[in-house]
């Protein structure tokens, strides 16, 4: 009878543990669900979208959304100045934004981890040089640096993605370096070194798995900055070039229609906001769920 009060709970696996904390965070779950929906839209854009993003309906220029006077249910969110369906363009834009986010985050994550590991592991001159470069990059606002890079390389989606990955590099380098330095002083690393593990094994097998949690959080937040910066570049005419359906560049032309057609302005931007918000919510949730300091 008394033994039942003393029974220890069955230990959860780290994944279960993580999910337990993550699902308690309503905002994070909402963010996750929204991201999944956007991913679905992006993957099956051709099926989901009612129209082709470049179809110009000559008889339906600047049509208001369906629920307004003069709206047409065939064009649920209305049409733009050349008669393209806004909803379809937003759906196809999701494909672009997510893939740019994915490419930029993956590229900067990989290079950043490598540089951070090397800096943290080698210390000395290598570390100083890498960290100086990182400091210089951090001294520049990311958007300005991205603009500079795109201005030189010429405006295109690929260059914009490249610029965004370069710009987000410093964060990953710093995180990995800090985590590496912290882990390097732990006894388990010393002991594997004593056993004779090679530097590569030490870096990737011993140290890296222990820095994964902050990197996951940073990568999630990196998605939101990538999408935001991509849209900003597109808006400034430095990213995706028209007719490509990109959320930011959809807004670039909208400036002249502010007076007449609010829907051309409102929906693409709302989509950017919601997607970025979803990634930020999820990033916050991940941080709370992965940060052992906050657990109990």
């Amino acid at each position, binding site marked *: 009878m008394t033994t039942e009060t003393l029974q220890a709970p069955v230990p959860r696996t780290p994944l279960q543990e993580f999910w337990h904390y993550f699902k308690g965070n309503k905002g994070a779950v909402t963010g996750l669900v929204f991201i999944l929906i956007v991913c679905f839209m992006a993957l099956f854009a051709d099926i989901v979208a009612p129209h082709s993003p470049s179809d110009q309906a000559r008889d339906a220029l600047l049509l208001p959304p369906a629920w307004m006077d003069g709206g047409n249910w065939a064009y649920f969110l209305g049409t733009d100045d050349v008669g393209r369906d806004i909803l379809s363009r937003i759906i196809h834009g999701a494909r672009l934004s997510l893939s740019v986010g994915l490419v930029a985050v993956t590229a900067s994550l990989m290079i950043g981890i490598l540089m951070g590991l090397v800096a943290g592991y080698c210390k000395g001159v290598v570390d100083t040089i890498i960290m*100086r470069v990182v400091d210089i990059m951090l*001294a520049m606002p990311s958007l300005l640096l991205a603009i*500079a890079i795109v201005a030189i390389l*010429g405006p295109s989606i690929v260059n914009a993605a490249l610029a965004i990955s370069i710009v987000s590099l410093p964060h990953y380098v710093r995180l990995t370096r800090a985590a590496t330095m912290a882990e390097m002083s732990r006894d388990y690393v010393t002991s594997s070194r004593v056993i004779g593990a090679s530097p590569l094994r030490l870096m990737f097998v011993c140290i890296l798995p222990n820095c994964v949690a902050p990197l996951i959080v940073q990568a999630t937040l990196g998605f939101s900055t990538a999408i935001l910066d991509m849209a900003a570049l597109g*808006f400034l005419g430095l990213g995706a070039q028209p007719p490509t359906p990109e959320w930011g560049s959809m*807004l670039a032309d909208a400036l002249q229609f*502010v007076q007449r057609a609010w829907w051309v302005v409102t929906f693409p931007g709302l989509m950017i906001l919601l997607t970025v918000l979803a990634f930020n919510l999820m990033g916050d949730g991940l941080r709370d769920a992965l940060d052992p300091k906050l657990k109990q």
Partner: protein
Amino acid sequence: MFQFIFRRLSLVIPTFIGITLLTFTLIRLIPGDPIEVMAGERGVSAERHAELSAQLGFDQPLYVQYFNYVSGVLQGDLGNSLVTKEPVLSEFLTLFPATIELAFCAAMFAIFIGLPAGIIAAVKRGTLFDHSVMTFSLTGYSMPIFWWALLLMLIFSVNLGWTPVSGRIDVVYWIDDVTGFMLIDSILSGEVGALSSAISHLILPSIVLGTIPMAVIARMTRSSMLEVLSEDYIRTARAKGIAPWRVIIIHALRNALIPVITVIGLQVGILLSGAILTETVFAWPGIGKWLIESIGRRDYPVVQGGILIVASIIIVVNLLVDVAYGIVNPRIRHSR
């Protein structure tokens, strides 16, 4: 204290060298021949090409070019605009006050709303107010500000007609350029209504530009306050029987501000890059709009010089923040 400032200063020099290297390299990364690119579609004759090349120093070895570039920069020579033929620095100085005015008002908006919101949210943790502040600040933090600008313009300028759509002041006023700051110049001009026109032109751009910093400041203040409020010395202060407001303002806020000041300093970078977007939407004649237009015109010396100046400003501001950090935090001030 002076040693502390000196140490910080010595760290700035390598960063500055790095920035000059970066801007120096940038212009040489342009695909193709820089002179042809600068000349544009008209093209240049071979003699003119050699002449220009010598004039711009492209015929010399790279390290000499870099040395010349840096010594030029140190003397305030950032080259001339290809379009207007004006020195880059003087163009910059003409436009900079407009950006400062905008960024300053945006920063005031961000601090005067973000700081109290964060403090109250932390003190009233878990209440409706706290949840609203957190929701609003996360939304603001995720805001694509160019869209936010369009949206506010749509609501307040187009639909309600409360604020003007763009520019710094109504066209009916002709204001002498004394300080470059429209708020001051409009007072100096003595024209009736000029000041209120200048203010009404400033409101929307400031709110737009201040939104992200406001969100960041509110979030940071809240989390910093929460951390400080659970410290032992807060319990000590309360055990002295002093009034709750005094515990919060004198004991908690002073400590909580230390990380917040760093964050406020970091916002200068966000403000300057955000100014590029805000100025573009509101046709605000500042350096952000200037840079973007120069990129469009392929006016490379302007792009190069503009980026160098903006980056230098950010370095200097970060230095000032570091020093301010030392002043509020006695532990740093007294460290050797």
